[in-house]
C-alpha cells in the first residue's frame, strides 16, 4: 500500500492508503476529521469542499494520493487561532445560515474561497458561486445573507444582524 503525506490544517500527516482512497475518505477515516461530509457520489453536493493549496476543491473528486505534498485546510482548520469563530463562521451563525449543519462545512469552505477571490460580491455572484453546493434546509436565503454580511465585515463595513 502506498504512503501519502500532506499538510492538513497546518500539521504534517502521513499514512498508508489504498490507491483508490478518495481524499475525503482519507480525511474522514484516516485522520478522523469528520467535519468534511459526504452527501453524494456524483461530485454534485459540495458537502466535502476543502481547500487544497488554497483553492476550494470537492474532496470526493480527487484521490488522496493526488494530494501528495499539498496544503489542505478543512472546516476544522478555519476558526481563529484562539479557537473563536472566524468572521465567516460567525456570520453563518448570526444570520441563521445553517439548519441541520450537514452542508455547512462545504458551504463555509466554498464561501471562504469566494471571498478570497472577490471581496465585494453581489447577491447574484454569491448565488452563482454556490452552484456546486446543495442545501436542503435553508432555501439558501440566509446562506447568501451570511456570506454578503461576512464580506461586508471583512471589508470593514458593518451590517447588523436581524
Amino acid at each position, binding site marked *: 500500500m502506498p504512503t501519502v503525506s500532506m499538510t492538513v490544517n497546518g500539521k504534517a500527516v502521513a499514512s498508508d492508503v489504498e490507491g483508490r482512497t478518495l481524499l475525503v475518505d482519507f480525511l474522514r477515516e484516516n485522520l478522523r476529521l*469528520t467535519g468534511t461530509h459526504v*452527501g453524494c457520489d456524483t461530485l454534485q453536493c459540495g458537502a466535502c469542499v476543502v481547500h487544497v493549496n488554497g483553492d476550494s476543491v470537492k474532496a470526493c473528486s480527487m484521490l488522496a494520493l493526488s494530494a501528495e505534498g499539498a496544503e489542505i485546510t478543512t472546516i476544522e482548520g478555519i476558526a481563529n487561532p484562539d479557537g473563536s*469563530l472566524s468572521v465567516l463562521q460567525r456570520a453563518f451563525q448570526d444570520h441563521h445560515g445553517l439548519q441541520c449543519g450537514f452542508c455547512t462545512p462545504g458551504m463555509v469552505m466554498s464561501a471562504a474561497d469566494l471571498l478570497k477571490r472577490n471581496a465585494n460580491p453581489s447577491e447574484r455572484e*454569491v448565488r452563482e458561486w454556490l*452552484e456546486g453546493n446543495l442545501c436542503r434546509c*435553508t432555501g*439558501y436565503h440566509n446562506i447568501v445573507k451570511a456570506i454578503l454580511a461576512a464580506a461586508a465585515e471583512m471589508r470593514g463595513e458593518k451590517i447588523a444582524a436581524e
Partner: protein
Amino acid sequence: MPRDEAVASGGIGKAVKRREDVRFLTGKGTYTDDMNRPDQTYCVFLRSNVAHGQITRVDTAAASAMPGVVRIFTGEDIAAAGLGGVPCGWEITSSNGEKMKEPAHPILAQGKVRHVGDPIAAVVAESREAAKDAAEAIGLEIEEMGAVVNMTTAIQGHGAPVHDEAEDNLCYDWDLGDKDATDAAFANATHVTTLEFVNNRMIPNAMEPRAAIGEYDAARDQHTLYTTSQNPHVIRLLMGAFVLNIPEHKLRVMAPDVGGGFGSKIFHYAEEAFVTWASKEIGRPIKWTAERSESFVTDAHGRDHVTKAELAMDSEGKFLALRADTLANMGAYLSTFAPCVPTWLHGTLLAGQYAHPAVHCRVRAVFTNTVPVDAYRGAGRPEATYLLERLINKAAQEIGLDQVEIRRRNFIRPDQFPYDTPVALQYDTGNYLATLARALEMADYAGFNARKAESAARGKLRGIGLSCYIEACGIAPSSLVGALGARAGLYEAASVRVNPTGSVSVFTGSHSHGQGHETTFAQVVADRLGIPYESIEIVHGDTDRVPFGMGTYGSRSLAVGGTAIVNAVDKVIAKGKKIAAHLMEASEADVVFEDGQYKVAGTDKAKAFGEVSLAAYVPHQYPIEDIEPGLEETAFYDPKNFTFPAGSYLCEVEVDPDTGKIEVLGFWAADDFGNVVNPMIVEGQVHGGLVQGLGQAFIENCVYDENGQLPSGSYMDYAMPRAGDFPSFEVDTCVTACTHNPLGVKGCGEAGAIGAPPALVNAVVDALSAYGVDHIDMPLSPQKVWATIQAAKPAMAAE
C-alpha cells in the same frame, strides 16, 4: 435574575442565535457516519436492479471467500431467523368496510423483488470497499416480470400484480365527506370548474444520507442502534416489537446529529433492523451508510397523486361544493405512515381556508413497482393545497373573477371560529383576511399591472399567483388518530430535571435535525422559569436518556413537545412552591412564582429559584414528611386538537415566450403560526420550505420509466434547487394564537412546502393566460412551458 433580563438573554420572542451552530460550523457535529465503534464491520446491500421479478439464483460462495468478507446474509437467513417484516403504523379502512391490503415487507427479499433498490443480500466485511467488491461478486439471477408503474393502468389489473393479495394493485379505496350533499350541490351549481392534474413525485434528499450502526453487547445482552432518525423511540418500538423481538429495555436507539429529514427519516427502514440483528449474529458492530445513489432508490419518496377535482359555484362565485378523486401511489410496500398521508392528512384539508358547504373526497391507494411513498415535508397537505388553490384559480379564470376576490368571497371569517369543516376538522382560530392583506401589501399587488406592462414592453410575460394554504399540525390527539387507524398515540413527553445548583436539564421526546430545538426549547424554559437561557440544556435523541416520545414531524415539536416541556416545568414550579412555603414559613396558597423567585404575596419575603432547588436536594430544613426530596418532573402531553397554521403566498414570475424559461422575480409569504418563540428560526423554516415547494413546482421531478427504472436517480438527473434558482424572499407573520396549547403556537416547519407550489404555478398560468392556458402540470420546465405556448398559438391565431 429579573424576568426582563432573563427574557433579554433568551426568552420567548427573541431571535436568539442558535447554540447548536458552533459545533456544526467547526466540524464538530456528530452525525451517524462520523462515528466508528470498536471492532466495527461495514455493510453493503446488494439491491435489485430490476423493478419486478422472481429471484432464481443468489450465489454467495465466491463472494464469501473474498478477502475481508465476514459474512453474507440473504433472504434465507432472515426467514430462518424468523424475523418480522417492516411494519406499517397506520391502517386505513376502505369505504366498503374492508381493511387495507397490507402485504409483507421483508428485510431482505423473499423470492421476489418489487422495486429497483429492493435489498436482496447484505455483505458484512472489514471495510466498505471489501464489502462493495464482494457485493459485486455475488451471482444473481432475476427472472423479470412486467413492472407495474402507471397507477391508472395498475388498477385495471393487467399483468402480474405487485402483490398476489392485491390483484388490482389496490391497497384501499377510501372516501370522506358527504357524497349525497356534494352531488346535490353540484346538480344545483351555476358553474362547475374541473381540473385534472398530477402532483409530481418527489425524492426527499436530506443532505445527510441515511446511516445506521448496530452493536450488541453480549455481556449485558444489550442492543444499541445509532441511526439517522427523526423519532428514535418510534424506531425502538417498531423494530423491537414487530421485527426483531427485542424487548425495549434491551434496546437503545440513538439518533445523534441528523442532517435533515423532511419526513424521510421518520420511517423504520430495513437497513437499521438488519444491522441491529446481524451485529449480534456476527458478534461485532456493523455500520451501513447509504451512498446517494442508494438513497434515491431506498428513501421513501413523496407526493405522486393523480387527481380529478371539481368545484361547484353559484352565480356570485360562492363555493357550493368540492369533489376530488385521487389515485395515490404507495410504491411497492407500505412505509410506516404511508396509508394516512393521502387520506387523513389530505382529504381532511380539502376545505382549505374556505366555507365550503360540502366536500367529498375519494382516494384509491395503489401499489406499484416503485420505491415506497410516504410523508414528505407537508405530507398530504401540500397535495390538498395544490388541488384546491389551483382549482380556485382556474375557477376564477373561468368566471372572470380576480384570484383575490374569489377567495375573499369564500374565506371563513374571523367570527366563525371555532369552525367545523365538512371534512372532520375543527379549526380553532385564524384570520385569513389578515394574512391575505399582509401578502398583498408586501407584494404591492396593486402595482402588478404596471409591472406587467413593463415586462410586456420587453416582450416578456409577467404573472402573479396567489395561494392561501391551511395545514393541520401539532399532530395529534391520540384518541382521534386511533379512531382513524393510527397504531400509536401521538402525544409527546418531556422531563425537566432541576439540578441541585439550579441549572436545568430538559429531556425531550422531540428530535431536532435542523429545527434548532436546543435553542428554542431553552428559550421556552427560560421564559417560564425566569432563569438565564444559558443555564438550560436540551437533551434529545437517545431512548436511554429521554422519556418515551413520538419524535418530530408534522410541525409538532413546539406545539406538542413544547407543551410537554411547559407542563413539566409547571409541575416543577408547583413542587417548588411547596418547598418555598416551608422555607419561608408561609402558607403554600400565599406563594407565587414570578421573575424566577418564589415570593410570599404581599410581603418582601422571597426565595430564588436556585435556593429552592438546592433545598430540594439538601433537604435539611425540609417538609420531608410531606414532599419527596429532589426536583424533577415528567409530563406527557396529548394535544386536544390539531393546530392550524395558515397563510397567503404570492409569487411573481416572468416568462420568456421564446424559450419557455421562467424567472421567479419575487416571493412573499405571510404566515400565521400563532405565537413565535424565535422569529429568526421561524423565518429560516419558511425559507427552506419555500424552496422545497418551489423546487417541486419548478424543476424537481422523480421519473420512472415503463420498466420501473429510475432515470432521475442521481443529482445529475434529479434537479435539486440551487442557490441561483430563486431570489431572496420576503416573509412575515400575523398572529392568531392557538387556543388549546399554553404557548399559543401552531408550527411552522412545513408551511413553505405546502403553500409555494400552487403560488408558482398560478403565477405562470397567469402569465400565460393571454394564450388561453389554464393549467400546466408541475414541474414547469422551460420545454413544457414553451410547448404549451406553441400549442396555444394556433388556437389564438384562429380566434
